[in-house]
């Protein structure tokens, strides 16, 4: 019988929620890495028992953890004793070092700083981990300050794909949430194509496995930047795709819900009848490529649902026409937020939809959003939610 494993990252540790295919009774495991911020956990689609976790702390920096038994036990993959004659570099899995100029040894590039000067890239943390679709040893990490790193040895060591910073990186600048690369989408039909998104910079695409990148922000319109139609500077909150149709992308921007039918070459707004088009997460139904989900938030200065009602909105038409999903969700006095990486779907029939809140609730729907119930109510603030559908 099928089963579901929900991976929850919170401000104070990770939690793993498991259920059988009925998704009615849940077992809660955790906190793992108690007291640490767990920005993201994600399992390999090739080997579901292999899960990577980003463990981070303002005090003690970045740790990468890996489980090879579905989250029962964890190791710091580059932190063990040297075991090979040539010596695996110790502690390498915690090491994210930006490329320097081979000519000068100085920082490769700089970016805009708050005072208008140029500032070198400084590593803060890993926001998002994206395991390869074809190789369990390969995994990508989206980090702050914005960059993408790749490991080809199961997370032991990491190398930057520095070509991304050539995509007008000198114009990027941090917003209030930091200059983070938070979204990585791998194209299942083309192993050389990836999409990424960066707060306050925009969306970017590579067609050569990460060597070169181009901005894909045409059609975005943002009133909060000097040129609302600029190629760089849009605050993209999240991008989603259906794996059967990777040329169609959906975006939740700072304001506006957008759709591209050209792999990001151009975008059209599909906010339609949403009560507000500000929000963070966006996701796609596992079996219906035109069914998408967002959680509208009142505004950029009031990060909670309009009218104190927590409502997921679903479009079955790929945008523009939206319906509120409310059954089982609080419809009064609710002032939580749902962060960008905190929504996911399973691939059971019917499709399960999950999201976590800054109030510590993780809600699940086993019928594509028609009905909701909390799996847990009182976790620390939820930063991320991922789902694994297990055989």
């Amino acid at each position, binding site marked *: 019988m099928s089963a579901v494993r929900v991976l929850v990252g919170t401000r104070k540790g990770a939690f793993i929620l498991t259920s059988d295919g009925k998704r009615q009774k849940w077992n809660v495991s955790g906190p793992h890495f*108690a*007291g*640490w911020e767990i920005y993201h956990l994600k399992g390999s689609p090739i080997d579901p028992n292999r899960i990577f976790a980003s463990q981070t*702390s*303002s*005090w*003690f*920096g*970045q*740790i990468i953890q890996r489980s090879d038994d579905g989250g029962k036990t964890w190791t*710091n993959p*580059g*932190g*063990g*004793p040297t075991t090979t004659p040539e010596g695996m570099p*110790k*502690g*390498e899995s*915690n*090491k994210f*070092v930006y490329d320097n100029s081979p000519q000068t040894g100085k920082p490769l590039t700089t970016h805009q700083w708050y005072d208008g000067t140029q500032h070198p890239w400084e590593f803060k943390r890993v926001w998002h981990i994206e395991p390869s679709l074809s190789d369990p040893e390969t995994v990508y990490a989206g980090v702050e300050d914005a960059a993408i790193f790749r490991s080809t040895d199961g997370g032991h060591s990491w190398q930057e794909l520095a070509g991304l910073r050539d995509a007008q990186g000198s114009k990027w600048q941090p917003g209030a949430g930091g200059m983070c690369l938070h979204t990585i989408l791998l194209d299942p039909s083309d192993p050389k194509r990836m999409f990424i998104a960066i707060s306050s910079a925009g969306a970017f695409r590579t067609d050569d496995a990460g060597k070169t990148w181009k901005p894909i922000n045409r059609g975005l319109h943002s009133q909060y930047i000097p040129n609302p139609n600029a190629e760089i500077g849009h605050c993209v909150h999240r991008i989603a795709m259906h794996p059967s149709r990777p040329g169609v992308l959906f975006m939740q921007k700072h304001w506006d819900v957008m759709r591209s039918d050209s792999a990001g070459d151009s975008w059209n707004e599909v906010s339609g009848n949403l009560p507000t088009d500000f929000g963070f997460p966006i996701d796609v139904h596992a079996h219906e490529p035109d069914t998408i989900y967002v959680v509208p938030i009142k505004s950029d200065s009031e990060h909670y649902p309009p009218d104190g009602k927590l409502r997921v909105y679903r479009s079955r038409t790929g945008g523009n026409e939206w319906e509120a999903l409310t059954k089982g969700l609080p419809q009064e006095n609710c002032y939580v937020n749902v962060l960008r990486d905190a929504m996911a779907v399973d691939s059971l029939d019917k499709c399960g939809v999950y999201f976590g809140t800054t109030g510590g609730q993780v809600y699940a729907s086993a019928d594509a959003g028609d009905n909701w119930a909390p799996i847990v109510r009182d976790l620390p603030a939820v930063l991320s939610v991922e789902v694994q559908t297990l055989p």
Partner: protein
Amino acid sequence: MIRVILPQHLRTLANVSREVQLDVAGPLTQRSILDALESRYPMLCGTIRDQVTKQRRPLVRFFACEEDLSHEPPDAPLPEKVASGAEPFVILGAIAGG
């Protein structure tokens, strides 16, 4: 043997008790202690000082013999009581209020 006290989160990460004992080669300094500590517990690399610059992380402090040694040069000799094991070298995270 010298004695090092780690903050709780790093004890959990390294799977050790409150205090660890280390053999440190050569003159006893912050650098030689941290080199020995990271060599024995590689998962601590990057958690106390930067992986590349080796600078102390901003919210980590070093105490010994009732003194804050955080701003001492990394190669400055540490007190004899630390070298003899009479007093521990304390690594701690800054207090966060709230």
